[in-house]
Each structure stands twice: as C-alpha cells, then as structure tokens.
C-alpha cells in the first residue's frame, strides 16, 4: 500500500472510534444532568436589580444546592451583578431568557484562583456533573474591568510588567474557568465581553458545548473558547465572534494533551485565527475531528496548527470548511519555543472539502479590537506548512480544496525570488510566535511547504485574480510530495512554472 493510503485508512478508523466514544459521552452528560431539583436564586437573597453585588449570595445558593445533592440554580429574568463564584458538584446554573449575569467592574471582586493562578467570574475546580444552561447571557463587562485593573497597576497597587501596555491576561478575569471537572454541559447561553480569554476548560473530561453564542471582543486576548488538555469534548452548533483566537485548543501541561475532540457546525469570526491548536502547545493534540466549519472576516488564518512547545499533533481530520474573507487559510507550523527538549511532532493531518477566499484588504476591518498591522512589508501570504530542520511535518493530505487569492503582488514593495540564496534567506525562526505572516514575504502566492514529508495535494485549485510575480506553489526541502489533479489559474501567466521544487525529493505531478 502507498503510504498515504495507509494513513488515510488509519484516519478513517480513528474518526469512527472518536465518534463512538463521543456518542457515549453525550449520553452520559445528558443523563447525569436530568435528575436534581430546581432552586431559584431569589430565594437565597440574590437580587436581579443590576445594582446589588450578589457574589456571596450566589455562592451561598450554589453551596446549598450542591449540599442538597445537586440540581439547577435558576436565574429568572433580571440583571445579576456578581464577582467570582465557584460552581460545586452536581450544580447547573440555569439562565432563563432575559436573565443576565453581569461581571462586576471592580477588579477586587475577582479571585485569583490558587490552583489555576488565573482570575475568572465563574470557576469550577475539581467538580463533577456541572453546567451552565439556558437562553440567558453572561456579560463580563471586561473592557471596564480591564481598564480598572490597568489603572491599579499604574497606581502601583498590583504588580505587572504591563507588556504591550496592558495588564497580563491572568490578572484580568475570564467569564468561565473550569479545571479538572467531569461531565460538563454548557448549552444555549450567550457569553459576552470578557476582560481576558472568554471560557477555559482545563484538564476536563466529558464536556459538551452546544448551541452557544459568543461575542468576545471587548478587550485584548478575548478568545472564543479555550480547550486546554481536555479529553472527550464536543463543541457544536455554536457561533463565535472574538477579537482573539476563536476555537482554540491548547496544551499547557507537557504530560497532558487534548484528545478525542469533535467540533461541528460552528461559525467563527476572529481578529486572529478561526481554528487554532496552540499557541501554548506543550503536551499535544490527538484525534480531533472538525466538521462543517465556517470562518468569516478573520484577520489571520482560518486554520492554524502550531506545535511550538514540544506538542505532538496527531490524527487530525478537518472536513468541510468555508472560509470567506480570511487573511490566510491553512498554516501548519512546528517551532521550538518552550519545549525544553521535548520533540515537537505533527503528523497524520487531513484537511478536505475546503472553499476559501482571501481578500486584498484587511478582512477584519471595522470590528472592535482589530488585529494589528504587522510583519510588513509583505504581499498577500500563501497558505503554508512549515516545519523546522530535523522536525518535519508528516503525512498531510489536502483534498478537494479551492482557494481564491487576490494576486497582484508588488515585487518592489516586497520580494522573495526563487534562487537558492533567496529561498535559503527565509529564516527558520524556531523560537518566534507562530503566525502565517511571521516570515514576511514568502516565495509563493498559493502554498509554501518547507521541512515536510509525505505531503499530498489532491484535487486542489489555486486561483489568483490578478497576476502575481511568484509561482503558485513552492516546495522547499520536502520528501515525497505529490500533486494529483492540482490546478492553478492566474491571468497572463502564460507558460509560467507554477509548481517550484527546491531541494525536494521524490516529487510528482499527476
């Protein structure tokens, strides 16, 4: 069997195993959350008047419900202001339509949790069978809280280096931070305006996120959702609009990893990346399936997989992506940043059934907290797979993909030619923050591959709307690269060689 066939069978098998397992989780989460009584917050001295600070009362209510054996704590329509609270075992916060939980704007109302060393509005640490459900809203009012925190730092009341003239992200509260919890249901709610990331699930197991809406662009580092070293996760039917990375899988612990994850039927809008593995990527990401993903008006890449801190990224299937008005489409990257000698791996990646349009203008223009103009000068960057010397990205299948580029690059503004000296001048940047734009000008307009092995492009079309001085594809130091039915369309291209090989072995174009 050819290597890519073998690996495709493996992927199909994996996909089936993940699906079966995730179905089991779904059943277990749905059944555990059915029993239990309903309790109403107003019976515990909680006021929905948009004024009263309810922190202690809500905590009293949660503790009570948990002690009674669990149930739903119901927030009827109203405006509930609170600081940090902890969800306890078997408790679900249920926000009825018209109920909003407002984060306090006083930084002192938030707890810096001693386990996770981070601030949040709603914590859960080592609790099982918990959830937040209903059609209500959680609004962190993060902009005001972040600015208030910054002012405390200026007055010397909290210590902070103020990198980039903002307080570091762990000193600003997220809306949700769950750690080491099992059987979690997040359903129906709207999550708005955090001061930092939005919702983190860290070393959790059996997590279902269903039908949520995220509006997260009130301050810097406003992610959509962060899944950190979690097992058995389903995220589906949800809409995300975030200033920073949207569907973000991270691995903070070198001994843990994100495993068995299904993301389906989601829409992502971001001033950073749509689907992202990393940036913190110590342990790894295994058996992840992403289906029917739409990415719109996104500043950086629709898909970024980064193994820059020693992560193992393995058995990933992305099937069905519509990426419209995004700055880049695919960026797979191995780096060597904080790995401390742990070997980064990226292999067995299938990305298929993708239609994408890359614009000439800034794709996230007009959104709050637009992505920063940087890494200039460069013309429109190609999608890329970029490993490091000694760390190849392996077994990547790109199938049924069409990407439309604006073309029209200006070689006097930025230029990277095809001579050995020019191609070798592209820096390796092992310790740099991974972004598709980090290398500034790249020598291709469609796809650039470097330090990779067993790469297959099958039924792939690259279209440039205007002439570009670069070829469509550059393969640099790649072993076994295969192009099957790959089409390039570029006006006035004539007989231009669109696929350029440099120091690549075993190449084929069919």
């Amino acid at each position, binding site marked *: 069997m050819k290597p890519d066939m073998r690996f495709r069978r493996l992927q199909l098998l994996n996909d089936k195993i993940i699906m079966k397992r995730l179905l089991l989780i779904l059943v277990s989460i749905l059944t555990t959350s059915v029993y239990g009584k309903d309790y109403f917050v107003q019976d515990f001295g909680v006021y929905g008047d948009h004024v009263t600070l309810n922190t202690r009362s809500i905590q009293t209510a949660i503790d009570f419900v948990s002690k009674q054996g669990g149930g739903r704590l119901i927030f009827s329509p109203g405006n509930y202001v609170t600081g940090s609270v902890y969800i306890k075992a078997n408790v679900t916060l249920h926000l009825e339509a018209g109920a909003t939980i407002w984060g306090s704007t006083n930084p002192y109302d938030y707890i810096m949790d001693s386990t996770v060393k981070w601030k949040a509005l709603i914590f859960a640490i080592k609790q099982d069978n918990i959830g937040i459900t209903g059609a209500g809203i959680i609004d962190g009012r993060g902009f005001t809280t972040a*600015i208030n925190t910054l002012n405390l730092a200026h007055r010397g009341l909290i210590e902070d280096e*103020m990198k*980039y*003239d903002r307080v570091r992200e762990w000193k600003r509260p997220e809306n949700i931070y769950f750690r080491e919890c099992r059987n979690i249901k997040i359903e129906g709610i709207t999550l708005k305006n955090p001061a930092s990331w939005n919702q983190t699930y860290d070393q959790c197991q059996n997590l279902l996120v269903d039908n949520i809406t995220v509006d997260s662009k009130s301050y810097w580092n406003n992610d959509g959702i962060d899944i950190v070293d979690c097992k058995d996760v389903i995220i589906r039917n949800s809409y995300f609009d975030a200033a920073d990375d949207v569907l973000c899988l991270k691995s903070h612990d070198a001994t843990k990893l994100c495993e068995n994850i299904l993301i389906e039927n989601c829409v992502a809008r971001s001033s950073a990346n749509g689907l992202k593995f990393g940036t913190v990527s110590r342990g790894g990401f295994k058996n992840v399936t992403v289906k029917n993903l739409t990415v719109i008006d996104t500043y950086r890449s629709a898909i970024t997989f980064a193994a820059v801190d020693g992560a193992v990224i393995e058995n990933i299937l992305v099937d069905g992506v519509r990426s419209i008005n995004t700055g880049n489409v695919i960026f797979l990257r191995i780096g060597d940043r904080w790995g401390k000698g742990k070997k980064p791996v990226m292999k067995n990646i299938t990305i298929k059934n993708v239609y994408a349009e890359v614009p000439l203008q800034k794709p996230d223009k007009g959104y709050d*907290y637009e992505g920063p103009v*940087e890494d200039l*000068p460069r013309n429109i960057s190609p999608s890329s797979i970029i490993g490091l010397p000694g760390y190849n990205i392996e077994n990547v299948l790109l199938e049924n993909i069409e990407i439309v580029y604006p073309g029209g690059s200006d070689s006097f503004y930025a230029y990277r030619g095809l001579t050995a000296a020019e191609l070798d001048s592209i820096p390796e940047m092992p310790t740099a923050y991974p972004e598709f734009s980090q290398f500034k000008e790249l020598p291709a307009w469609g796809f650039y591959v470097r330090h990779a092995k067993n790469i297959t492009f099958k039924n792939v079309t690259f279209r440039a709307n205007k002439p570009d001085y670069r070829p469509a594809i550059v393969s640099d130091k790649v072993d076994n690269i295969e192009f099957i039915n790959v089409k390039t369309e570029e006006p006035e291209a004539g007989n231009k060689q669109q696929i350029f090989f440099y120091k690549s072995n075993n190449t084929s174009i069919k």
Partner: protein
Amino acid sequence: MKGIRLSLFIAIFTITICQAQEYKASLFGCMSDGITNNTTSIQAAIDYIAEKGGGKLSFYVGRYLTGGLVLKSNVTIELHEGAILVASSNINDYILYENERALLFGNNLRNVSIIGKGVIEANPKQYFLTTNALKGKQQLQADYLALTPSLLTMINCSNVKVEGIIFQKSLQNAQKYISCNQIDLSNQIIRNNTIENSGSVVFQNTKSITLKNIFIDAKGQPIIKDQNSEIIMVENCINPKGKPVL
C-alpha cells in the same frame, strides 16, 4: 580636568534623562480600542512630557483614535509595531492654523521625532461622507470645510526625524514641511493611493532634507518640493514600479 569630567557627566546624564524617559500611553488613560476619542488624553501626555523636559510617549499595539494634536519640542512619539494612530473623521477635531489643518501639528519646534513600525492613518471614505454631509447643511462655510487635514504638518521646525512609520489612507498629502530645517525621513511606507491628486510628502522652503528607504504608493505626485527647498540626500525612495520618486 575634574570640571570637564563633571560637566561631561552632567551632559550625559541630562541627555539620557531626556531621551530614555518613556511614558506609556495608558498612563494617561489612552484607550487602544479604536472607539474612544483619545485627543485630550494624548495631548495631556505630550504636554506633560514636554513640561518634564522631554521624553518619549510610547504606543503599543492597538488602534488609538484621535483628533488633532499639537506636538512639542523634545517629545518623541513612538508607535510600536501594531500601534495605529487613527485620525478622526470629524473635521472639527483637527488643529487649524492659518491655512493649514493637520492631525499632528508642529509649529516652531526643535527636536521632534516620530518613530517606530506603527501606522498613522485616516479614513477618507468616512471623512468625506461626514464633511459632505456638513456641506449640505449649509451652516459651516465652504472654505472651512474645504481645508482637508494632512496627517502631519510641521512649520518652522528644525531637527525633525520621522523614521519607520507607515502612513496610509491620508486625506490629502500625508506629510507637509513648511519653512523647516534638518528634516530626516527614513524607512517609511506611504500608501496614499485613495485620494485623487494627493501626493505624499510636501516640502516648502525647507532645507537640509534627507530621504532614505521610502516606499511611496501615491495617486498624485509622490514628493512635491518648491524651488526654495533643498534635499541633500536621497537613497532608495521608490514607487510600486520600482522607479525612483525623485
């Protein structure tokens, strides 16, 4: 000998103080959200730093919306990579001085620097939409409305350095230097390609100009210079076709 040493020490000390003192924009309440109008906060920062004998006002990544600002001697504005000064689209927000209107305005100054990999930009579409709407109201005079702001105008200034900045989407010419001396422009990207007939850099009666590594993509003439102006050095200043602009 001792005296010389001491004075040398004092001189170095003073220079270091003046140059190294950095003030972050957020200290003055500047917001990087692209929505808050920061005009008074940034102006307060510039005035404060000038009063302290000079220093550097640093903007880090973000969009800082502002109206017109008056620059001061010995005050450096640094726009770090990703920091953008976004010019207001309201004509009333700009500094009006005789026949000039500008976002950043300097008059009779010494030692002014604007440095960094950041951006200074306007929003021509929105600006002209609002200004034309005002024209239609027939209250404000036509000549008040007709004077379109530049991004940077310096009059009677000497020892001015503008290094590394990206000027884009200017409403008219991006930079104007009138009766100035010792103007040092380098490593700039100027994308002034939205407004018809707008050039990029204008020199009037200005001496000792050096221009180095400037990429200009302009609809109008890239560099406009009158007979009384004197450029002493030009190096690698090109248009999108790679042709020298001078």
